[in-house]
C-alpha cells in the first residue's frame, strides 16, 4: 500500500490506517480513495493546495467527518464504526466520543473554551471523561502548562492571551487526555509570523517524545525538519509520499513540483 513508508516497527499495528476513504459534500468529491498508513511514533506531514482535502482527511481520522466509503482505524481499532458480519455499523455517539478521547486534535483557530480559565480548559476533559479526580486533573494541567511554557497564565482567560499562547494552551488541552496520537489542523495558519516559532517548537518537542503526529501545515521548512514522511495531496487523492528529502527536494510528480515552487 505504502511502499515508500519508512520501516519503523513493522510488527506493531499501524497507529493510523486510512483505507480507501471517499467523502462527498453534495456533488463535490473531497476525498477520492485515500489509503494511508501511519506507524506508531511516526511524524507525518500532509501538504497540499487549499481545498485539496487535507483538513477533511484529518477530520475523518477522529470521525468529526464520516467517510461515505472506506474506514479508518487507530491502533487497530475501527473508528466510528464496528464490524458486524460483512458490514460496518455506525457506533453510538457515546462510543465515538470515548474513541475520540484517545485521539488529540489541535484546531487552526484554537477553539479554546472562552468562559473557562486556561487551567480549567486543560483540566476539563480528564475530569469530564471520568479519568481523573478534579485535584489530580488540576495538577496534571499545571504540569502541562509548565511544559508548554505557560505556567504563569493558568488563571488567565483565553482571550487575554496572544494567538501563539492560545495555541500552546490548546496543545496542552489535547495532551491532558494522554493521547497516543495527535492530529494538527494547520496549527500555525492563524498566527502572526513572529508567533509561529513558539508553537512549532512545542510540536517539535512532541515529535521527539515518540507521540504519533499527523500534521497538516504549510510550513515547508518545519516539515523538512520534523517529518518522517511527507504526504502530498491534491483533489482528494494522494499524489506522492515519502521522506521529506525525496518529496520536498526531488518530487517525482509535476503537480507536487508546481505546488512546491509556489509555496517555497
Amino acid at each position, binding site marked *: 500500500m505504502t511502499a515508500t513508508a519508512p520501516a519503523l516497527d513493522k510488527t506493531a499495528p499501524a497507529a493510523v490506517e486510512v483505507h480507501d476513504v471517499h467523502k462527498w459534500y453534495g456533488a463535490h468529491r473531497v476525498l477520492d480513495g485515500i489509503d494511508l498508513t501511519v506507524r506508531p511514533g511516526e511524524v507525518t506531514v500532509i501538504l497540499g493546495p487549499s481545498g485539496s482535502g487535507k483538513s477533511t482527511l484529518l477530520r475523518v481520522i477522529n470521525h468529526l467527518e464520516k467517510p461515505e466509503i472506506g474506514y479508518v482505524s487507530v491502533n487497530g481499532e475501527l473508528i466510528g464504526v464496528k464490524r458486524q458480519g460483512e458490514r460496518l455499523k455506525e457506533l453510538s455517539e457515546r462510543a465515538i466520543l470515548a474513541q475520540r478521547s484517545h485521539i488529540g486534535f489541535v484546531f487552526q483557530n484554537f477553539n479554546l473554551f472562552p*468562559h473557562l480559565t486556561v487551567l480549567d480548559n486543560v483540566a476539563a476533559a480528564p475530569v469530564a471523561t471520568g479519568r481523573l479526580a478534579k485535584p489530580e486533573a488540576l495538577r496534571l494541567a499545571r504540569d502541562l502548562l509548565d511544559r508548554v511554557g505557560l505556567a504563569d497564565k493558568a488563571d488567565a482567560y483565553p*482571550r487575554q492571551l496572544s494567538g501563539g499562547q492560545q495555541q500552546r494552551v490548546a496543545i496542552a488541552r489535547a495532551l491532558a487526555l494522554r493521547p497516543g496520537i495527535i492530529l494538527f489542523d494547520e496549527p500555525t495558519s492563524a498566527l502572526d509570523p513572529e508567533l509561529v516559532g513558539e508553537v512549532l517548537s512545542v510540536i517539535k518537542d512532541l515529535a521527539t517524545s515518540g507521540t504519533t503526529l499527523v500534521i497538516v501545515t504549510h510550513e515547508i521548512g518545519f516539515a523538512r525538519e520534523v517529518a518522517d514522511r511527507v504526504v502530498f495531496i491534491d483533489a482528494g487523492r494522494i499524489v506522492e509520499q515519502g521522506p521529506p528529502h525525496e518529496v520536498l527536494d526531488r518530487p517525482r510528480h509535476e503537480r507536487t513540483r508546481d505546488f512546491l515552487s509556489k509555496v517555497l
Partner: protein
Amino acid sequence: MSEPPGAVVSLVDAPAAEPPSRPLTAQRVLPLRRPGRWAVTAVVVVLVAQIVHGLATNPFYQWDRFRYWFLRPTILDGLGITLEVAALSAVLGLLGGIVLALGRLSGSPVLRAVSWTYTWLFRSVPLIVVLIFLYNFSALYKTVSLGIPFGPSFISFDESKLATDMAVAVVGLSLNEAAYAAEVVRGGILSVDQGQHEAASALGLPGGYQFTRIVFPQALRSITPNYVNQLIGLIKSTSLVFYVSLLDLFGSVQSMGSTYPGDIVPLLLVATVWYLILTSVVSVVQFYVERYFARGATRTLPPTPLQKARAALADLRTRLRREAAV
C-alpha cells in the same frame, strides 16, 4: 514640503504682532463650541421641569391618598401574588423554553415539527385567550389521569379540584412564556461558535457535559438580555390574571378602585410605582448577571456603577490638576 519658515505661526489664530507666549505644542486645543446643542438642552430641561412640577403640584394626582394606599395590606397581598405568579412562570417558562429549543435543534424531524408548532400556536394566540380557555378547562376535560396512553389509567384527578386560580394563572403564563423563551434560548445556542461544539466533541466530552458546561454557559451571555426583556413583559402580563379572578397587584388596585371611585388615580399611581420598582430591580440584577457571564468573553469586565463613579472622580481630579498647572 517647502513652506516658508513663518508658516507654522500662521496656524495660530493670533495676530502676527502678538506672538504666542508659549510654543504651539504646549498650548491646549480649544474645544469646539456647540450653541445648537446648548439651546436644545435648555428647552428639554424646561419641559422636564414642567412635567415634574405638574406631577408634584397637580391636586388631581392626590399624593396624600397615594401615600395612604402605597403600603396597604390589600395592595401588598396583591403584590405578593404578582411576584409569585411572575417568579413561577419565569422559571417554568424558561425550563419549557430550553426543552422546546432543544427540540427545535434536534435531529428528529418530529421533535422539530412539534416544537415549531407549539411556538407558532402560543405566539399566535393572545395570552388573555389562553388564560380564559384554561379557566374553562374543567368543562372540557372533567378528569386528568396518569396511565398508559389510550390505555388504562392508574390515578385520576378531578380537574376542578386540581386547577386553582393560581394554577390556571401560572400554567397559562408559563405556556405562553415558554414559546417566547424557546426562541430566545435557540438564538443563544445558535450564537455559540461551531468551533466550540467541534472542540468539545473532539475532546470526547460526554454529550450532557458539552451542553451544560460548554455550550449553554456561552449561550447564556446572549440569552440574558433577551430573556430579561421577556421577563419584564411577563411581569406586566401578570396583570391579566385579574381576569381569572386572581387578585394580583393590578387586581387589588381595580377592586379597591371600584370600592373607592374617588381614589382611582392615586391607586393607578400605586400600581405604576410598584411595577417601576419591580422592573428596576430586574434591571439591576440583569447588569450583574451579564457581568458574570462576560467573564472570558471580554478582556476586561464592564465596570460596576461604583467603579464607574470612582473612575470619574479620579478623572476629574487629574483634569483639575492639569488645569491648575496650565
